């Protein structure tokens, strides 16, 4: 790497931030591998422990659960599913070695109570992972959840439709999922780098193989 001397000097002092490299003091932070090497690489190592992440989906069932299955398999403590769009199906999940006894499903139509439940789950030591379906969270709500997740070192995902506004939110990572032949992931925001245009992610490995019956 050859930089001009002045730039080199700035780097020595640590005054220059390089978009692609995780800052040294941050690398010690614990990452949970997302299970997808191509995604891990872009996220700086995986999902950050103690973070809230947003998955914007073009349509429901586009592949968002397949993306999260490796995390579900890995988590030792309980997982809270808050307002999933349909019933999570036990035989399908147990096929992927997800521990059924650790899954708690909460359906609450009142948005205020739903957020209360989310916060309770993040504050409880027994829950490690929160999956929350919500049409639109305000900036204040996201910040509050992020603070709870960060303080308790929990991992949380908010699954929501594509958001039209570009308002800032306190999410650590914001992903936009769409599907052509493969699942396409677009990084709207990430902790250690610039936003990225869509790239394919091989989540179809955890889905039935696609072929054509002619």
């Amino acid at each position, binding site marked *: 790497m050859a930089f001009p001397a002045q730039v080199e000097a700035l780097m020595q002092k640590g005054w220059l931030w390089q978009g692609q490299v995780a800052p040294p003091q941050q690398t010690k932070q614990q990452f949970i591998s997302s299970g997808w090497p191509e995604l891990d690489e872009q996220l700086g190592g995986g999902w950050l422990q103690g973070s809230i992440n947003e998955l914007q989906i073009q349509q429901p069932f586009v592949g968002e659960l397949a993306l999260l299955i490796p995390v579900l398999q890995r988590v030792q403590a309980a997982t809270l599913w808050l307002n*999933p769009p349909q019933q*999570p*199906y036990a035989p399908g999940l147990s096929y992927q070695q997800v521990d059924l*006894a650790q899954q708690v499903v909460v359906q609450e139509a009142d948005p205020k109570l739903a957020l209360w*439940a989310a916060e309770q789950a993040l504050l409880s030591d027994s829950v490690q992972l929160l999956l929350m379906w919500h049409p639109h969270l305000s900036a204040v709500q996201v910040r509050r959840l992020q603070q709870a997740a960060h303080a308790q070192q929990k991992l949380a995902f908010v699954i929501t439709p594509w958001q039209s506004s570009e308002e800032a939110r306190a999410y650590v990572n914001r992903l936009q999922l769409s*599907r*052509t032949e493969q699942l396409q992931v677009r990084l709207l925001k990430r902790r250690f780098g610039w936003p990225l245009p869509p790239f394919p992610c091989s989540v179809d490995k955890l889905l039935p193989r696609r072929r054509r019956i002619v």
Partner: protein
Amino acid sequence: MNAWLYLHFPHLLLDYQQALQPPEAAVVPTALIQTRARQQQVVQANLAALQQGIRLGMADVLASTMCPQLQLRPYQEAQEHRVLTQLAQVLYQDIGHLVLTPPHGLICEVRSMVQLHRGFHGVVQRLHQRLQQWPLRYLLSSGYSPLAAQLLGWAGCPVVSEHATEVKQALWRLPIECSGLPAEQIAKLRDVGLVTVGALLQRPRAELGERFGGALLHYLAALTGELIPPQSPYHPPDRFDEKIELVAEAQSWPQVMFPLKRLLQQVEGFLESHQWSTRGLLIRAHHRDGSTTQIKVRLARPTWQQGELLQLSQLHLARQQLTQPVLALSVRVLQPEPRQAVATSLIAQPATKTDELTGLIGRLQARLGEHKVQQLHTAMDWRPEYQGQLQPWQATAGQPQVTQRMPRLRRPYWLLAQAQPILRQQWQLQWGPERIVSGWWQADTIQRDYYIAVDRQYRQGWIYHCSDGWFLHGWFS
């Protein structure tokens, strides 16, 4: 050795009523009055009233003239007795042999407790600790007989000591008016110059008996502990259903939190004394017209700790609207059950985790409703909608995994609660068919051919064909 302790609560009912109110209320001078000798007299007064110069036995007119802001309430004997019983229930956690001496005293037998609480002072300390939970004014006195302890308590000069001699000295100094004898008896004794209890005890028994009758001899025998009058020790009841009358009407739930806390404290005492835990409480708020608002508090796991009970009760109460003012509050313990030893494992971590999980579930269920918190349930059935279901969460989550006996098959991660009719031409079949024919033994027979198919947005669905047409039943996603 002094084998008896007497607990004297001179202002029991008033103190108890104040304990049910927020602490600010204690600043107002308050007194209880009772009709005695055709006169309304002050029988109990709080600290604020005593500081203003109110004395017990004062006529109510005089008292309210001296202190215009004094609040007067009638004394109710039945209520005080109920309070005393509740107190006995609390103390029963520490003392095995308790005798109620209405209106406001309790006798405790110490000798059998000395071993348990490490000595006489251990017992006394234990009692003090237990009574600290209650803002009650009390006197604790020891004695070599129940009567001796009682006399010292009544006279207001308590002696707490292990040694009989100290009690004896204090007792001998007591004036004859404090002997607890009938008034005419006292007058007679005074007439012959016996002005202290000590003087009475010094005289030869036989002569005293000749002159003052057998009743006095019985009294002396009880005082010296030679004869202990028959007692009916307190036994805790088998069920808990206690009611508290509020001093003022409560318009909202936060106003009844103080009484509720007290009641739950008693619930803990009750459950502790039986070594029980409970799975539910019934809280009733009584209204003026005799109707009640009932709130059933169901618990995800059996418990006996008041902190947990209070937290869950609060969440339950917050869900219920209070339409009328509340006059009284009662709590009943539903489904008490013997405590079960928590399965202890060598590795403590997972046990506490599940414990906390049930705690979280309990809170969620209390606030949101039981049916809204669900778990994944599997059953031995080939019909997809029976094989995996969502069910309300129950504490017995450690059920055996049935799926292990079912062949592991590729199944979607989502199942639609109701299969959706679809247009076949919008789906491209990818895998199948898998025919499922089952359920002939129930009315719900199915005969379906399942396929994995892709829709126009490249999403994988689980669709089936049956005699009614094509349906979408699940999503792989």
